[in-house]
């Protein structure tokens, strides 16, 4: 009972002082880097490394031989964009640990990025429109 009370007090002191101690995983009592849990995480990191490397190799191969092999440039570009987002998602989710954060925080970070949907469509459309105007008139 008293031990529990003592812990609560500790938390309060840390909250007002060094917050990082509370949220850096220190309180999770990670101690042994040779533990099974630690090794599992490291093997996941190397797995993601392999995925990123393979996707990059596919991208380069598409860039070198895609159109030469008869693929329309538009289709190759769709593949490039999908593979880029695929890579970006792995970096953010696993390397930056956003996947391990609270869902509310993840949403808070990701929602502003939806502005890019408008941003990209509006500005590329504008560029295309001006090319048309310059070509026609």
């Amino acid at each position, binding site marked *: 009972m008293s031990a529990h009370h003592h812990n609560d007090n500790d938390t309060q002191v840390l909250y007002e002082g060094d917050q990082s101690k509370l949220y850096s*995983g220190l309180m999770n009592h*990670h101690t042994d880097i040779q533990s099974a849990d630690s090794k599992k995480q490291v093997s996941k990191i190397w797995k993601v490394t392999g995925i990123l490397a393979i996707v990059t190799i596919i*991208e*380069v191969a598409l860039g070198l031989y895609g159109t030469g092999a008869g693929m329309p440039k538009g289709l190759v*570009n769709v593949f490039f964009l999908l593979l880029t987002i695929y890579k970006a998602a792995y970096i953010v989710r696993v*390397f930056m640990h956003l996947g391990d954060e609270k869902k509310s925080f993840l949403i808070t970070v990701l929602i502003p990025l939806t502005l890019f949907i408008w941003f990209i469509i509006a500005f590329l459309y504008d560029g295309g429109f*001006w090319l048309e105007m310059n070509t026609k008139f």
Partner: protein
Amino acid sequence: MSQATATTQDVKSWNGGHSPFNVSYGKMMMWFFLLSDAFTFGAFLISYGTTRFFSAVWPDPNKVFHSFPFLGEANAPLLFVSLMTFILILSSVTMVLAVHAGHYNDRKGVIKWMLWTIIGGIAFLACQAWEWTHLNHQGAWWGSFTNPATALSSFEHFFTADKAVIAQHGLQATHDFYNYFFTITGFHGFHVFSGVIFNVMILLNTVNGKYELRGHYEMVEKVGLYWHFVDLVWVFVFTCFYLL
């Protein structure tokens, strides 16, 4: 029932006394800084896209970037930039391993992996310096290719399009292309450079035992976020400049 429980917990988590997001102030602010930086880079890349859509022709990356150090005139499109991409991805991997070691208060592990990360960062910068120098020797820089009297032969090899179109629009397109190329890869390179400086600072603090004394290695995590973001931006720069 489960929904009711979730709602109660939700209200509780916003009632004060602890962080509802379960992250420290510094880490949260690093995320929000990176969010703003993402919009800066996004604006640069979208502006590049607008200009490209605006242009009747555009340089073909396979034609512009085809050299490799010490291979002379050998035609090796995309090879050098692939190497740069792998270097940056690997330095991101060593960074996440440093963060992992920090979670377990493994000082030796943090030192080892931070060193590899710094080496990777410097290797990337060296590659970029070589590429910039090489392009500069071919006459490319900010504000280059503006003289209307420039011979067609000095820029037509950047394109795969029809010769008449290149003659009419190629010079302007080459000028625009290089302005954006040096601005965007330069801004990214400056991020890599400052990232290396931060990494060195963190390494020195680790070696001096500052974080061991503090009891946690969260600074490694925060600088790690910045470093991963630099890698993330490169993924998009690579696509926009070298692939599309």
